[in-house]
């Protein structure tokens, strides 16, 4: 433990870390934020359409826009961000990336971009209006699926780069724990790789079917394989955000780590319990018995446990810092927090939104509650506060120190102020949009539907005022979007030269030694695979053996 502290304190003096590594991660961040801008603007078009304020042309219709929005934000932005962030973490905490790892980072980026271009071109040309879930038997152009496969291959290269870095580092630092943030990186790369195996199997079945080499497809199997990945991705963003909450936020507010051991246990729990969590997307599906659904409800629920541990840990850290600064009472710490510091404000708001976000997640796991909201706009509202605030606002918060750290520049008070404004606009925009979506979803408004009156139905007309909130929120979010993109590129190229710290909180002076078993990744992976097998082997075998005749392809757009 002491050795790690000494080492990381030495590195934190070298602002900017390795120049070659910074170039790699800054390139990732640039592309990520351009993607965010494009994807976000497409989101605005949808909000305006859904509120009945804008008619989209037939050659670039609502569903095309929605497909592009989903893919660009859910897949491209988040993946690029997560990889860039963890590569900079590995570089910073491990004294630079090994040259082979840096090379893998570049190859991964190029591979992913080739895949993305193939995917998006097909969407724009109208050959793949199938949403980011691409449920068969809706059939996109085969090249759309080929593109997806290439994207996943790129993700794997990055994940293996991460594994290589950690393995090489451990060989040179025998007996030492890997740095805590690198421990998070390990968890995320494991999920990126294992979590995407299911969807890869799905895509490999879809490609020959889309080319016409096989006639039919097993719809249920495809859908289940998709969700084995779909929800793991959610937890990858979440684990990334959590790493910043545990390790960076305490340092920013002048505190210490909650507990190195507990933090590592949370990472392990999130990794091993993760993949079967996606089944709750299928609670109202046919073809699966109620018993299997309940088993999975239980398995999904387990993810709630480490989240609640996190909630406790964070408030404990805040209270401890508050007390040190003279706060009194249970909530006295609130007044002692640096609310004007965007590096704190953004992740703090993100955490606050995780309270309703997490509760909504738990609610969806229960059969009856799931039935109330399944495929309604409520779900869209739910993931806009979980991903759009809890994860993304934490990511934004990291940009105010990570970009200057990488570009060897500084965050000026003026830029900090602009950051605070950006954070508030983003938050208010999400409150309007996600709030409207939650409400109108409970009233029954479906998701993924362009503006419609359902034949002048009075029920549908009663949704209209709430749908207007979507447009208002969308406009505010667009302003927030332009601001964050401006801030990121300003900090990258124009902010004053200087040194910025990579904030990493240290443990308490009397903290107990982290036990060695936390490092047994081979054991955790085996446990994870065992849990995945427990959740999936029986239903998948059943879906393959007791399959109805397969479905031929349909193009319905």
């Amino acid at each position, binding site marked *: 433990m002491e050795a790690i502290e000494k080492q990381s304190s030495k590195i934190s003096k070298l602002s900017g870390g390795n120049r070659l590594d910074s170039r790699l991660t800054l390139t990732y961040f640039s592309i990520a934020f351009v993607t965010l801008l494009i994807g976000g603007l497409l989101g605005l078009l949808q909000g305006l359409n859904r509120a009945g304020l804008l008619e989209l042309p037939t050659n670039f219709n609502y*569903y095309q826009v929605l497909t592009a929005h989903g893919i660009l934000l859910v897949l491209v932005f988040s993946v690029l961000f997560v990889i860039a962030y963890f590569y900079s973490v590995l570089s910073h905490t491990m004294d630079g990336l090994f040259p082979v790892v840096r090379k893998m980072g570049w190859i991964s980026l190029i591979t992913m971009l080739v895949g993305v271009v193939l995917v998006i071109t097909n969407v724009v040309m109208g050959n793949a*209006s199938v949403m980011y879930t691409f*449920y068969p*038997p*809706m059939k996109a152009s085969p090249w759309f699926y080929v593109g997806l496969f290439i994207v996943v291959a790129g993700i794997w290269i990055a994940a293996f780069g991460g594994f290589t870095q950690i393995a090489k580092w451990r060989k040179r630092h025998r007996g030492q724990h890997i740095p805590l943030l690198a421990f998070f990186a390990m968890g995320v790369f494991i999920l990126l790789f294992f979590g995407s195996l299911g969807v890869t199997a799905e895509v490999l079945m879809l490609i020959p079917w889309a080319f016409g080499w096989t006639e039919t497809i097993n*719809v*249920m199997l495809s*859908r289940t394989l998709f969700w084995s990945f779909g929800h793991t991705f959610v937890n990858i963003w979440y684990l990334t955000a959590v790493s910043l909450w545990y390790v960076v936020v305490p340092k920013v507010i002048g505190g210490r780590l909650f*507990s190195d*051991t507990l933090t590592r*246990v949370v990472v392990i729990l999130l990794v091993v319990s993760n993949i079967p969590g996606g089944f709750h997307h299928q609670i*109202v*599906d*046919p*073809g*699966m*018995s*109620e018993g299997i*659904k*309940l088993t999975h409800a*239980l398995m999904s*629920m*387990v993810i*709630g*446990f480490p989240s*609640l*541990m996190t909630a*406790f*840990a964070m408030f*404990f850290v805040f209270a401890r810092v508050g007390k040190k600064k003279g706060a009194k009472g249970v909530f006295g710490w609130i007044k002692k927090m640096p609310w004007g510091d965007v590096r704190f404000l953004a992740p703090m708001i993100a955490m606050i939104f995780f309270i309703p976000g997490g509760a909504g997640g*738990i609610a969806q*796991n*229960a*059969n*009856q509650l*799931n*039935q*109330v909201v*399944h*495929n309604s706009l409520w779900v869209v509202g739910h993931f806009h506060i979980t991903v759009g605030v809890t994860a993304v606002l934490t990511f934004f918060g990291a940009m105010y120190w990570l970009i200057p750290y990488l570009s060897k520049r500084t965050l000026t008070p003026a830029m900090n102020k602009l950051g605070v404004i950006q954070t508030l606009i983003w938050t208010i925009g999400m409150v309007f949009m996600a709030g409207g979506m939650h409400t109108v979803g409970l*009233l*029954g408004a*479906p998701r993924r539907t*362009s*503006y*419609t009156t*359902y*034949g002048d*139905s009075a*029920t549908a007309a009663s949704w209209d005022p709430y749908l207007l909130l979507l447009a208002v929120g969308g406009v505010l979010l667009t302003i927030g979007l332009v601001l964050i993109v401006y801030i990121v590129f300003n900090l990258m190229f124009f902010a004053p030269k200087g040194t910025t710290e990579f904030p990493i909180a240290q443990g308490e002076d009397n903290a107990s030694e982290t*036990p060695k078993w936390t490092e047994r990744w081979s054991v955790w992976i085996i446990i994870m695979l065992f849990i995945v097998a427990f959740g999936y082997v029986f239903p998948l075998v059943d879906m393959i053996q*007791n*399959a*109805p*005749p*397969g*479905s*031929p392809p*349909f193009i*319905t757009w």
Partner: protein
Amino acid sequence: MNMHRYEKIWLFLAASMLVIAVVYSGVQTFALGQGPPSGVGMIDPEKVEETAPFDNPGTFQISENEYEVVMILRAFSFEPNVIEIPAGATVHFKMTSTDVMHGFQVIGTNLNAMIMPGHIQEAKQTFKKPGEYLVVCNEYCGVGHQLMSMKIIVK
């Protein structure tokens, strides 16, 4: 691993909450018979119209206060697209799709189910309040998805 006493209490409460949620779901599903729509029947998606009971979609009274509704979903319509049911009757829905995935959501009720080609979805609902219920497809199914709706008239 050293844990703070408050943390132990918090984690105990957290775990209890999750266990209660699961147990409650279990009781609802198996003791109260309110499980989610989970029809396990299968059908050849290319032969729906010639396979019983889907060769004759419609509303059928099966006992004094019970009805069966056989329904086909296809892009972008329901067949039948209007059904009439007396208030208080229990309705058993049997549904399948001839093409892509669709959703079946009766607005103002908990009735919400995925309809997939190859699978026969089943759901049960008692409509107590008379009125006109809007039913929408809530799974994106193509360019006319926003037009896909029907009515349940409860008298």
